[in-house]
């Protein structure tokens, strides 16, 4: 009995450890550039600090955080420029062009645009984007570009800790914050109902798999007992009769809508799905 328990334990542990490693292997390039100050709004010292903050918060919120400033969008809209920029670089937390949020400060139009990709689309609902944009533009309009960038990073990563709920239409209800302030026991007990649910589901699944009866089956087939395992074909008729042709209209490609409770999204250049929003300052 003890031996059996040990074997069950070993198998299950191995499986779960593998799953955990897989999660951690997600390629995030913390060394890459995160702040592209093409408009020269920030000092080099500020850029260094923002880079560090981007990397730090990216790990906490599991999305890539990018800041871009520009004096000219070369005729493109802010949205288009932001999305093209995202696609042109190797951004994305989980994979290339994966989870991420990019803020563009367009000095030509004095406009801010936040583009979201992957998981960020679900977390950053339209209301939340508006909240972030409002917070950022209030800083930018008074010329505090560095503070605006910090506000973007902090607010975005805060929102990434929990999904927007339907009752939380304002997107402001920061009920739980898992920041550096949380103690170890708080971290252990965080989202306990979910963890209990996962554990119960896994346990049920494992027991079901173990209970499955591997019934023995017939292993002889139709040719096993045939003389030399062969049969003879004495007559073979394949006579062509007729051909029928039925015409079908091809269905028109339909527009797919974005995530259910998340932000609205659309297909950007190259077919990649983006969400986002912006505002003037």
């Amino acid at each position, binding site marked *: 009995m003890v031996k059996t328990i040990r074997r069950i334990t070993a198998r299950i542990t191995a499986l779960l450890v593998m799953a955990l490693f897989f999660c951690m292997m997600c390629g995030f390039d913390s060394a890459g550039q995160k702040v592209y100050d093409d408009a020269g709004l920030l000092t080099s010292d500020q850029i260094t600090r923002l880079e560090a903050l981007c990397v730090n918060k990216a790990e906490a919120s599991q999305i890539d955080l990018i800041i871009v400033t520009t004096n000219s969008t070369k005729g493109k809209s802010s949205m288009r420029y932001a999305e093209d920029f995202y696609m042109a670089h190797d951004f994305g937390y989980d994979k290339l062009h994966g989870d991420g949020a990019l803020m563009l400060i367009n000095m030509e139009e004095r406009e801010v645009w936040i583009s979201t990709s992957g998981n960020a689309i679900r977390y950053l609902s339209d209301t939340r984007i508006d909240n972030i944009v409002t917070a950022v533009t209030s800083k930018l309009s008074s010329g505090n570009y560095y503070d605006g960038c910090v506000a973007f990073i902090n607010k975005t990563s805060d929102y990434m800790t929990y999904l927007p709920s339907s009752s939380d239409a304002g997107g402001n209800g920061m009920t739980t914050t898992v920041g550096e302030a949380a103690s170890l026991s708080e971290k252990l007990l965080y989202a306990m109902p979910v963890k209990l649910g996962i554990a119960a589901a*896994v346990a049920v699944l494992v027991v079901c798999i173990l209970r499955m009866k591997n019934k*023995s089956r017939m292993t002889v087939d139709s040719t096993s*007992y045939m003389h030399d395992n062969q049969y003879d074909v004495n007559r073979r008729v394949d006579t*062509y009769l007729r051909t029928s042709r039925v015409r079908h209209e091809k269905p028109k490609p339909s527009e797919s809508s974005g995530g259910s409770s998340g932000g609205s999204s659309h297909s950007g250049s190259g077919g990649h799905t983006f969400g986002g929003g912006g505002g003037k300052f």
Partner: protein
Amino acid sequence: MSKTITYKCPGCGTVMVFDPDTQMLTCPSCQESCTVNEYLAKYGNPQAGNHDDSGSSDESGEQPEMKIYHCTSCGAELVSDEYTSATICGFCGNPTLVADRLEGEFKPKLIIPFKLDKDKAVEKFRAWTRKGLLTPGALRSDSMIDKLTGIYVPFWCYDVHSTDSMHGTGLIVSREDHADYYYTVTQYYDVAREVSARFEKIPADASEKMNDDDMDKLEPFDYSELRKFEMPYLSGYLSERYNYTAEEMFDRIYKRTNRYIKEAADKTLTGYSSVTSRTDTPNSRVTARYYALLPVWMLNYRYNGKDYTFLMNGQTGKIVADRPISTGRSVAAFIITFVITLIIAMIGGVVLW
């Protein structure tokens, strides 16, 4: 042509027994051994000098001394030679066997001798119980393993000639693409096939007590080890007389050969997307039949008020068995998995946040 067959050891005179390991007759006291055929060649056939391969039932009157055990609890009738003693009934597991002298004939024509002896069978059974994590530990007890019985099950092996005349409509469907529309193009063919096959020695158990499906699943047997039946093979094992005559099982065997021949016809229908309005006219005919004994290890037992059967091919070791499930072990497995997953989820949560 004595009435009792005693394969006496030429060295010391002890009665020799058949050893599945070496497939030879072995003397338990002086380890002398030889194959059955060697013995017969050297020391003569105690049964009859008749080596006629047609081997039908005209060796009248030379019935050796044999025992038949009646089970007073389940009614099973087990046949053995006079040197084999049995106490526990292999079918119901009760120690209710009463020995008697066998009246009438017991003349199988062919036999595949046991290749797995009791020790190997027990080993395989133990391995099987260990393989199921939820299999109750009670199955591993010695009293359970003692009931593992080696039985030569009576089979009829049939040679069958089968034909199938098949007719139907074959469809070849393809797609032709245009800008805004496409065509589904279906070509229709008139399809007919006639296939035939000769099946050799399809086994069907003639034992009433044995489940037909389970017996079918024990196949395949390796016929290269098929021998002419000789009494010494029986030593140490039990057997049964057939409960069904060869003719009584024609329907069962035709059902199988008709299915096989239809499957053969299926294989000739290549190149079609589908075949519709198909009709088959299969026909089978038995051309020869053999009364054969095939080796099976059997263990019948009850667990939680339900009957279970463990069967193993005594030649190849293939297992056909239901696995009882222990409720206690299921609960234990659930709790262990639950706790481990929860701990990992909690620790994993700290690492990820």
